[in-house]
């Protein structure tokens, strides 16, 4: 048997020359016995494999053709796209769908969170005033923060107070209406430079509504300013006055208080009634008096009764005054950041900026969740791939 003269590979690690020689020999560009031996070896190795079964080859070709035919008919069934610009509507890509989903999610989150809504700005967000009735029915003192402009309650309170100024001669215990004292406080925000002007307008508003400015303190500066005003307004106009105040500048906070003074009012009225009754009784007794001493004594008591009536009248008027007028504390805050809150365009830009900031924050949070998740998924996919490759290579080593 002839020993086949294989070309020598030389060292264990091939050099470029060895590989080049092999390549040249196998692609037929090299000549000579060494190249011939490489080609002969390749031919021998290739000759060892039996040829492919013609039936299998034909079947495989048919399968490929069939698969291609299955894929091909999809195209004619696709809807025609007469308008190229609207093509994306017909076949949205997966990234586009994913992008739209992410944007929708972000918008939904932003709308739910709605961070641009200032907590004290939207007056309607306060709890409405079921407490009014409760307060009105309570005996004695009661106070609480109520919703904006309980006009009906204010009107009722003032009407009751004004209607009962004249002491009733009938039984006071039969009176069931309540007498209430209303109060309110409102905080307005404006630029530091506008504090004085807003304070002036607040005072004008109080005057035009039939009230007056009880006290006023204005402190202005370049960077900040504040004005505190105490207004005394007719209770019947409290609601309208608060609405008007809210139009002067953005409202930061608003609250109203209600105090039931029915007991005080009733007590004063009772005292007046008693004093009046006593005076009438004394006058009747005086008419019947005959002795000098008796007449002097009755006149002294009449004087005392007159004083008591005057005192009771004063107290009753004071209580009525409390019920018919309302004290409103107005605070005007000068804040640079408020600046353009009253201007629609600037306010819109400001809100848009905040929306963008919040959107970015949401995206950042989403990225903080999704990026590690994606890394984990990529790592798992890479690990799986590496594991499968390892398993395959292990098959080669195990044989």
């Amino acid at each position, binding site marked *: 048997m002839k020993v086949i003269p294989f070309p020598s590979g030389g060292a264990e690690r*091939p050099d470029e020359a060895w*590989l080049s020689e*092999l*390549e040249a020999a196998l692609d037929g560009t090299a000549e000579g016995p060494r190249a011939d031996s490489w080609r002969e070896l*390749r031919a021998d190795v290739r000759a060892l494999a039996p040829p*492919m079964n013609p039936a299998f080859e034909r079947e495989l070709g048919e399968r*490929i053709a069939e698969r291609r035919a299955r894929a091909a008919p999809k195209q004619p069934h696709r809807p025609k796209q007469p308008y190229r610009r609207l093509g994306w509507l017909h076949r949205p890509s997966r990234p586009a769908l994913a992008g739209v989903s992410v944007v929708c999610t972000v918008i939904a989150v932003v709308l739910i969170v709605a961070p641009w809504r200032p907590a004290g700005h939207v007056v309607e967000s306060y709890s409405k005033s079921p407490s009014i009735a409760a307060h009105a029915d309570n005996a004695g003192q009661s106070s609480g923060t109520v919703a904006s402009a309980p006009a009906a309650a204010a009107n009722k309170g003032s009407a009751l107070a004004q209607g009962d100024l004249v002491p009733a001669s009938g039984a006071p215990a039969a009176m069931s209406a309540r007498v209430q004292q209303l109060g309110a406080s409102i905080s307005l925000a404006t630029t530091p430079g506008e504090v004085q002007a807003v304070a002036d307008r607040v005072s004008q508003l109080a005057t035009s509504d039939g009230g007056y400015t009880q006290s006023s303190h204005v402190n202005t500066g370049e960077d900040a300013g504040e004005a505190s005003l105490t207004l005394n307004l007719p209770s019947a106009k409290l609601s309208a006055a608060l609405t008007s105040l809210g139009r002067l500048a953005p409202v930061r906070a608003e609250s109203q208080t209600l105090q039931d003074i029915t007991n005080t009012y009733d007590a004063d009225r009772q005292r007046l009634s008693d004093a009046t009754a006593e005076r009438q009784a004394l006058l009747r007794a005086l008419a019947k008096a005959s002795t000098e001493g008796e007449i002097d004594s009755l006149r002294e008591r009449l004087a005392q009764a007159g004083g008591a009536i005057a005192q009771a009248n004063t107290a009753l008027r004071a209580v009525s005054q409390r019920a018919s007028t309302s004290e409103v504390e107005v605070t005007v805050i000068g804040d640079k950041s408020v600046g353009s809150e009253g201007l629609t365009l600037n306010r819109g830009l400001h809100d848009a900026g905040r929306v963008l900031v919040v959107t970015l924050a949401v995206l950042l949070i989403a990225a903080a969740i999704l990026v590690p998740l994606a890394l984990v998924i990529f790592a798992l996919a890479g690990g799986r791939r590496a594991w499968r490759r390892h398993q395959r290579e292990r098959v080669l080593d195990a044989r």
Partner: protein
Amino acid sequence: MSAQLPSADDTGPRAVGAPAHDKLDDQAFDELFRESAADVHAYAISLLGNRAAAEDVTALAFERLYRARARLDHGRGTPKAWLFAIARNAALDELRRRRRQPQSELPDEMAGDHDHDEAFEQIARRATVRDALAALPLREREVVLLKFHGQLSNSELAKALDVSESNAGTRLHRALTRLREQCDGLGREEQIA
């Protein structure tokens, strides 16, 4: 044939960002099929030693290549390198799945499938090569089979093996050197005999 649909990671080297004009169109696929189907089958049957399994692997390789043709990146390997990479993965999966020892020697049909006119010397040489090849470790035999049946260049071989060109060259050199030594040894034994 029990060709099952391949998973995405079975399609050999990754094709990312392949431009549209570089995709393997139907005509090129047909051409590749005509040129390489027999080579893929020969590689598979030589590695697996089983005709049915080789046919499975061949069908699977072309099916997976067809599915992945849109993702082919010609800049990262020729379609033939991809085809043999897929075939190699499928063959190794087949070996792993069957969990049985492949035939340590090539099937009898290989040795007997020759023309009667062939020279005795050629027949004897091929028998020696067959025995030497069968004596090689599977890892080295696989490299020789890929190189000669696939007629792959060194870079294509590297792509098919999913290793660097340097590594592929080293493996090929080692495998061919051992094949040569095996053939030398077998030739001497026959001479002595």
